[in-house]
C-alpha cells in the first residue's frame, strides 16, 4: 500500500512530542538539582511541593519514553503502535485538560495539549487508519451491503 502523506508529519509530531517531554523531564531534574531539599520529602513544609515535583518529573519521563517507543512502532508500520499512540494521546489530553479545568495549567500543558490534539486528528484520518490496519471491517449481508 502506498504510504499516506500524513505519515511523515505524524512521525515528526510523535518524535517531537517525545523530545518535548524528555526536555521537560530534564528541566525539572535541573530544577530539582538547584533545590535538592525538595527531593528529601521533608515533612517540615516542602512535602507537597516535593511530591508534586516527583510526580511531574516521573510523568514527563514516562510520556517521553512512551512517545519514542510508539514513534518507532509507527515508523515500522506496526498496527499496535496506532492503538498505543491513541491511548497515550488520550492520557496526555486527560492530564492537560484536568490541569486546565483545575486552573493550574502552565505553557507546557498548552503545548502538550496542542501537539496531542494534532496527533489524534492525524491518527483518526481514514487513510492513516487503513495504513495501520486500524479500520473497521464492514458487516456483509446475504446480498451485499
Amino acid at each position, binding site marked *: 500500500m502506498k504510504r499516506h502523506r500524513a505519515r511523515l508529519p505524524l512521525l515528526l509530531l510523535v518524535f517531537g512530542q517525545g523530545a518535548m517531554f524528555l526536555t521537560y523531564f530534564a528541566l525539572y531534574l535541573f530544577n530539582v538539582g538547584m533545590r535538592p531539599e525538595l527531593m528529601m520529602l521533608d515533612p517540615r513544609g516542602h512535602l507537597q511541593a516535593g511530591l508534586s515535583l516527583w510526580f511531574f518529573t516521573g510523568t514527563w519521563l514516562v510520556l517521553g519514553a512512551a512517545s519514542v517507543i510508539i514513534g518507532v512502532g509507527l515508523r515500522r508500520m506496526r498496527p499496535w503502535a496506532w492503538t498505543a499512540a491513541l491511548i497515550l494521546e488520550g492520557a496526555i489530553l486527560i492530564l492537560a*485538560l484536568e490541569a486546565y479545568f483545575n486552573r493550574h495549567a502552565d505553557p507546557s500543558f498548552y503545548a502538550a495539549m496542542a501537539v496531542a490534539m494534532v496527533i*489524534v486528528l492525524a491518527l*483518526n484520518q*481514514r487513510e492513516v487508519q487503513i495504513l495501520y490496519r486500524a*479500520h473497521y471491517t464492514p458487516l456483509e449481508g446475504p*446480498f451485499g451491503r
Partner: protein
Amino acid sequence: MTMDDLELLRRFEPIIHFTRGEHFFPMDADRYVGESSLWEARPEQPPVCLVPETKLTLAKLVEPRPAPHGTVHYLRFVESLTPLEAARFLAKHRRAFRRSRGRLARVGLASRIIDALFSITLILRGRVPGGTAAAAADVYQRLQAKAEQYVYYGRAVRSGPGSFIGLQYWFFYPMNDWRSGFYGVNDHEADWEHVTVYLAEDLTPQWVAYASHDFTGDDLRRRWDDPELQRVSDHPIIFAGAGSHASYFSPGEYMHEVALPFSGPLTRIFRVAEKFWRDTLRQGGLSNEEADHDRSSGVLVVPFVDYARGDGLIIGPGGAKQWQPRLLPEAHDNSLDHPQAWAHHYRGLWGLYARDPIAGENAPAGPKYNRDGSVRRSWIDPLGWAGLDKVTPPGGVAAAIAGGASAIEQRLAVAQTEIADKTTQLRALGLESEAMIDAPHFKAHHPEHLKKIAGLSEAIQQLHKQVAVDHALLEALTAYRERLAQGERLPARSHIKLAHHPTTEETEQLGRLAEAWAALSIGLLILGFIAVMLIAPRFWANGLVSLVAAISFLEALFRREAKELIQRAVVGLSLVALVVLVYEFALPLLVAGIIALGVFIIVDNLRELAG
C-alpha cells in the same frame, strides 16, 4: 373490472409467511365494519357516535357526511378491555412468540436514553388504550370461529399502452399490535398493507414491490429474477412483520429507527457537521459509501425490531390457508353499487382516532386515502410509488432507445446550426469591436459591445458543451442497445440504493448478560446520578461524566468494542482541547494565521520570480 383481472390477480397472488404468535390475519372489511361503530370528531369538540356497532354496514359507511374542515370520521372496532380482562384473555391465548435478544441490547447507550424519552412522548401523546389489542383479538377470533376467511382486495392498474400492468394486492388487518404485542413502535386499530406485482404487456412478471412502513421509491422493488425474491412458481413470498404487518423479501429480524418527534432540525445540523468531519477533514473509519449505508434516519432515533421470521401461519397457494380474493373498483368507477364502493367513498379512518399528533397511533385510512383524506400515491401512481415510472418495460426498450437516439440526433443538428449562426454573429461583432478601438466617439458604446461579445461567446460555449454531452449519450445508447441485443441485462439489484437486511446472527446472539445490562443501565445511570447529587452535589458534572464513562466502557467490553470506544473518547477529548486552545489563544492564533498567509504569499511570489 373484468374476470380477466381476477384471473390475473389469482395467477400471481402472493403467499404470506407470518411470524409465530401473530394474532391478526388479512380479513374482509364487511365483517369488520359490521362489528364497528362510526364516529365523528369535530375540532375542539368531543367525538360523537354517528352509527352504533351492529347497526353499521358498508352501505351506511359510504353515505355522504358534510362536516367542517378538521373533522375526522373514524371507526371504533372494539372497546378496550380492563387490565384484568386483558390479562385473562392473554393467559387463555398465550402467544407462541419467542422474543430474541432485546432490541436495547443491540444498540448503544445514547439510543437507550432516547428510548426512555420516546416512552415519555407516548404518555404525552394520544395512544391506543391498553387492552385494545386483546379485545380486538377476542372479537377477531370469534369472527373467524364463525366463518374462517383470509381475504385480499385486488386491482389491476393499467397505465396506458406500452406501460407496466400493476397488480395490487391489499390486505386488511383488524389491528396492528406491534407495540403491545412485539415491543414495536405503535399500536392502531385496523391496518392496510399492500404489495404490487408489475407485468409487461405480454403478462410476464417483471417486478414486485412490497410496502414496508412509510418507505417509497426504488428500494421497495425487486426484479423478478432477483435471488432475494422468494417465489413458489409465479407466487411471490412475503414475510410479514409480527404485529406491524410490514412486508419483507427475506425472513429475519429487521432493525428500524424511529426519529423522536420534532428532532428534524437537530438531525439536519448534525448531518452538515458529520459531512464536514467525514468528507472534508477525512476523519473516521468508514468510506463515504459505507457511511451512507450505515447512516441512520436521524440523530434522536429509537431502535425497534420488526420480527418477520416467517415461522408461523402460511396463507396462499401451497400454504395452510387459501385466499378469498375480492376485486376493488377501477380508478374511475365511482358507482355506489360496487361491492367495494367504500374504497372510493369512505375517506375516514378505519379504526380508533387516538388524537396522536404524529399519527403513529391513529388508525390508517383505506387503501385509496391517506389519513388526511388525500389520495395515496401507491393508489393513484403505483409505478411512481415504486420508482418504476422511469423504467421502460422490456418490450418497448429497443423502440425507446431508437426514439431517444433520434431525438438526440435532431437536437445535435439544431445545436450545430445554432453554433454556426451564433459564430457568424460573434465574428461580425468582433469585427465591429476592432473597428471601434481607434474611434474616440465610440467610447460610450464600446463597453456595451464587449458585453454582447462575452454573452454570445458564453452561449456558444454552452452549446458546445451540450453537443459534447449529446455525442457521448448517443454513443452510450448505441452501446447499450448492442448489449441488450446480445441478451445482456443490467444487474438485478442495480437500482437499489439502501436495501433493508435482517440483522445478522451475530447481533441476535448477544449474551444474556448484555441484554440484562441493556435493561438495567439507564436506570443505574439515573440512580447513580441521584446518589452523586445527594452525597456530593458540588461534583455533579464530574460525577455524571464518570458515570457515563464507566457505563460506556462496560458496554463496550460486552460488545467487544473497547478499541472503538477509546478511539471515540480520545477524538472527543481532542475536540475539547481544540475548543480550549481557541478560547485561550484566539488572538495569537489569528495573528499566526495572518503571518502564515503572508509567508505563503511571499514564498509563492518568490517561486514565480525564481521560476
